[in-house]
């Protein structure tokens, strides 16, 4: 459904944009309906940039993003709006995603004005209730409130409900639960899993390996903008082949094993900046960058 073909992003930095900073290097993967793909990486790995390129928030330097057979990089005006009917994003900080001056349900009004001006008020209320129910919110509790009166988990779920009002097929979830408390985190995560079962494709961007492991079907591990390991989640986590993936897994704090008990990985050589590592297929749906 959504296909990234060798996309790259180079930022121009320096006084006159003279220096080039590659943020994403030759990344390709696909998202099928009802599939959760995790993009996992540390800061500076390019995971957010990939999400922004899918959402057309930053232009692509090289490569193509194909959505249902259409190259999205050239979409303009009405066609771009049509694309946003199907592809939406939710971001990290729920409190800065809202305008504090308006009530939180203002985000629904903007959707109605932009996409469904012809729908009657009664019908709209009906759809809104259905959408709120789908994200597990009680309309009476959240409508008519200001953002500061709601919890982070409620605000994030409202944003997902907003996306569901459209005929959404792909949701880009960029660190959407990093700022939530442990007790509400898992509820939002379970919500994403429910949506996936209804056929939504989700690009789940996170730095937290345990969250990625919990919900995703496919895992893409990124380092310095390039893929180091990619494949079915149980293969990447169960049989990590790249030393970087193994190092990340060994660093995750866990409740059933102490760091001291885990064999430390030898230090990794810093990846050379210029060259993009080539992916090699080492098993069924399991790709590893050559070291």
């Amino acid at each position, binding site marked *: 459904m959504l296909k990234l073909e060798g996309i790259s992003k180079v930022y121009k930095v320096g006084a006159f944009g003279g220096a080039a900073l590659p943020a994403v290097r030759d990344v390709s993967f696909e998202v099928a309906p009802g599939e959760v793909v995790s993009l996992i990486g540390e800061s500076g790995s390019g995971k957010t940039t990939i999400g922004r390129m899918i959402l057309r928030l930053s232009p692509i330097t090289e490569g193509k993003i194909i959505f249902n057979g259409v190259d999205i990089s050239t979409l303009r005006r009405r066609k771009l709006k049509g694309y946003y009917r199907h592809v939406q994003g939710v971001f990290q900080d729920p409190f800065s995603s809202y305008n504090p001056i308006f009530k939180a349900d203002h985000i629904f009004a903007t959707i109605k004005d932009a996409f469904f001006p012809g729908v009657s008020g009664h019908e709209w209320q009906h759809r809104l209730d259905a959408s709120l129910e789908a994200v597990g919110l009680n309309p009476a509790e959240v409508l008519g409130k200001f953002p500061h009166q709601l919890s982070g988990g409620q605000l994030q779920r409202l944003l997902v409900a907003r996306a569901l009002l459209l005929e959404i097929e792909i949701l880009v979830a960029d660190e959407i639960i990093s700022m939530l408390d*442990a007790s509400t985190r898992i509820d939002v995560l379970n919500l994403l899993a429910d949506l996936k079962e209804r056929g939504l494709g989700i690009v789940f961007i996170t730095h937290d390996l345990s969250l990625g492991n919990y*919900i995703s079907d496919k895992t893409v591990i990124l380092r310095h903008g390039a893929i180091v390991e990619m494949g079915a*989640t149980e293969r990447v986590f169960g049989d990590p082949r790249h030393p970087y993936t193994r190092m990340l897994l060994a660093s995750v*704090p*866990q*409740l059933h094993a102490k760091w001291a008990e885990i064999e430390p990985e030898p230090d990794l050589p810093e990846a050379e900046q210029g060259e993009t590592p080539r992916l090699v297929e080492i098993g069924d749906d399991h790709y590893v960058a050559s070291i």
Partner: protein
Amino acid sequence: MSLAVNDLKVYYRTLAGDVQALDGVTFSVADGEIMGLAGESGCGKSTLGKSLIRFDTRMRYVSGHVELDGAELPVWDSEAMNPFRFKQVSLIPQYAMSALNPTRKIGRMTKELLRSRGMGSNGAMSELSRRLELVGLSDDVLDMYPIELSGGMKQRTVMVISTLLDPSLLIADEITSALDVSTQKAVAETLVGFRDRGFVKSMIVITHDLSILHQIADSILVMYAGQLAEKAPTETIVNSPRHPYTRLLISSLPEVGVRYAEKKLAGIAGRPPPLLHPPRGCRFAARCPLAAAMCAQEPPFKEVEPGHLVACWKADGC
């Protein structure tokens, strides 16, 4: 006994009334102990950390005593706390990035800091270079501006500077939350190293991440809605918690190896109560699966086995 806190109450002044952010907290931290302080946002864990070193302007001291190495800490009096800060009690703030003065090089900033405490900088500066080396930073850092350092480097620099005078108590407030997993591990292990080398006597590590505490803390104190819920050695909290809140919190943690398809985790329904007018009795009762009539009375924070304290009426029976 390095630190002893007795029935500390600290409220926030607001236009609507007092927010009871810290409502009668009693605990102690032994010499050489790393105590983890865990809880959801708004449970009062940062307020507790702050009240041991510096009240911000909205905070109001209500009652209670804090004793450090046998001497009373005058936490309610900002002036009188001055001789203790940095020398006896030190803090690593959550955002190391904004804790450093952006217009000063690290070395000059540290010298100014030492001078403000009435200390000469010669001995301390060579000690500073030695300790920077211990955390894997070279001397060159002293000649750099904060903007030239990465997030993890800044965090480690701040850690070294805050512990330069060998404080008795170090408070680390959410210092690993903004870091990547590999940096997180390095920073957490540095904390343990500081304790092992005797740079600090005891430590309070504030975080919402129980799995980090499991790695580094000796004991864990769980807070809920401004009060203590449970305190026990780390292994006990993780493996046999008694308070229903601690149990739910631990069971809601996704771990590497747990997958949605195989085992669906559940969160804790509801929200923490508003602390402007907290409910009577047990504050967790509204979200608690075990709540019963007796929970309308406030449960005492009592010892159920040596070193294991729980504030729950049902701590014995389940």
